[in-house]
């Protein structure tokens, strides 16, 4: 049998998801012997868009799309990959739900450009030049840039077959996902590739797993306030951990070093709106209603990785 063909694309992301594949290290050598990398841009392979565009429809077996869709170029390549790939995977929380960089939707593009190119203290731009979608140099050479747009998750642009959470996905989870792809042991189309358990279910601090009763949080603390007791659930200590509603494919990495989970693994199965379910879970764990007022900045806390997938977030007053 010929080796399955793989494509990897980094859109509105940071390259961390690429690294999570490279982090398979020794395993990647194996992967490379079993996979044929048809396209990996812009980070790893020297491939051009036109090479990808020239490939026949459906000629790539699996496409991994990392990063969100933030400009016209990302959108174009998403459509090209959808056409070329038999299976398209939203790889990492940016592609699946918008990611950290989905928080740009709290601002308009104009506001962001003004901050980045005019208002910042270190910027020297007296003519207030902003990036242009098209610019003609010397009256004859047209230069173009992709047009910025609101941040979207991949499935707002093209149909997606599978989702992988994490920012980036933990390499042990990536290894499992790659294995599932290679052996064809994939869940039903449209689902997440996940073990299906919440971070809490694999967390050493979980009182239930220690046979102890759950208790309510009696305070709300920021992460820099005090030192958490390493043997007690962070949420019970007042550190707002989103472990109850987050997929635990990372193996509870953050709580294991006394940092509350921020939700990068994506919503546990059955949850459509991560932020709203997180509101529900956290509010249920608070001892009294006055604590609600002490939670700083709920949007950034509860939608840190998923704002573009929120319905309410789509109608922002900006």
């Amino acid at each position, binding site marked *: 049998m010929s080796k399955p063909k793989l494509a990897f694309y980094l859109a509105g992301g940071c390259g961390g998801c690429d690294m999570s594949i490279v982090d398979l290290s020794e395993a990647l050598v194996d992967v490379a012997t079993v996979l044929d990398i048809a396209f990996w841009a812009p980070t790893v392979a020297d491939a051009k868009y036109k090479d990808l565009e020239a490939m026949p429809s459906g000629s790539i077996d699996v496409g991994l799309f990392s990063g969100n869709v933030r400009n016209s170029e990302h959108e174009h390549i998403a459509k090209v990959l959808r056409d070329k790939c038999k299976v398209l995977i939203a790889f990492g929380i940016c592609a699946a739900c918008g990611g950290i960089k989905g928080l740009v939707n709290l601002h308009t593009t104009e506001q962001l450009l003004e901050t980045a190119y005019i208002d910042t203290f270190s910027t020297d731009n007296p003519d207030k030049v902003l990036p242009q979608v098209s610019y003609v140099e010397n009256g004859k050479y047209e230069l173009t840039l992709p047009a910025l747009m609101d941040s979207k998750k991949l499935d707002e642009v093209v149909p997606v077959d599978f989702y992988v959470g994490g920012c980036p996905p933990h390499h042990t989870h990536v290894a499992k996902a790659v294995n599932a792809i290679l052996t064809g042991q994939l869940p039903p189309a449209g689902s997440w590739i996940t073990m299906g358990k919440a971070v809490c279910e694999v967390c050493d601090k979980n009182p239930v797993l220690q046979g102890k009763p759950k208790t309510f949080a009696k305070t709300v603390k920021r992460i820099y306030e005090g030192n958490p007791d390493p043997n007690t659930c962070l949420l019970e200590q007042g550190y707002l951990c989103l472990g109850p509603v987050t997929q635990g494919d990372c193996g509870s990495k953050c709580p294991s070093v006394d940092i509350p989970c921020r939700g990068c693994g994506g919503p546990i199965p059955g949850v459509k*709106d991560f932020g*709203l379910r997180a509101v*529900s879970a956290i509010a249920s764990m*608070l001892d009294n*209603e006055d604590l609600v007022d002490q939670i700083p900045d*709920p949007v950034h806390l509860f939608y840190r990785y998923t704002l573009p997938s929120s*319905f309410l*977030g789509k*109608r922002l007053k900006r």
Partner: protein
Amino acid sequence: MAWEPRIIVIACQWCTYQGADLAGSLRYSYPPTIHIVRVPCSGRVEPEFIAEAFRRGADGIFIGGCHFGDCHYKEGNYKAIRRFKLFKRLATDLGVDPERIQLEWISGSEGKRFSEAMTEFDAKIRELGPNPFKGGA
């Protein structure tokens, strides 16, 4: 056609829903814009229900539960108010007018209060106008 509000009332079956029933028996009227959804307890109301009601075009959402001490599941209403307050903060930050959502404790014997609360909420929603989410969902 002139706009008429659509108001969703999510009512606990043990109290506010009975209050609505009583309002009916006693012939206290309330506006026809009110659509009641019965739930087992106010503690059953997920923030997702409220967002979903907005998504489907509701102009206002009212949640009715038992007074403190009266919840049949002891703490459902305490949970409801914590969730509601936190949801309201989040939704306000996302641009939703917090006046469009309300939580109140109305018991099974408060038929009159039910009819008043519905009349007041309907008037408030009429003042606020149509749901800004409409047409874009």
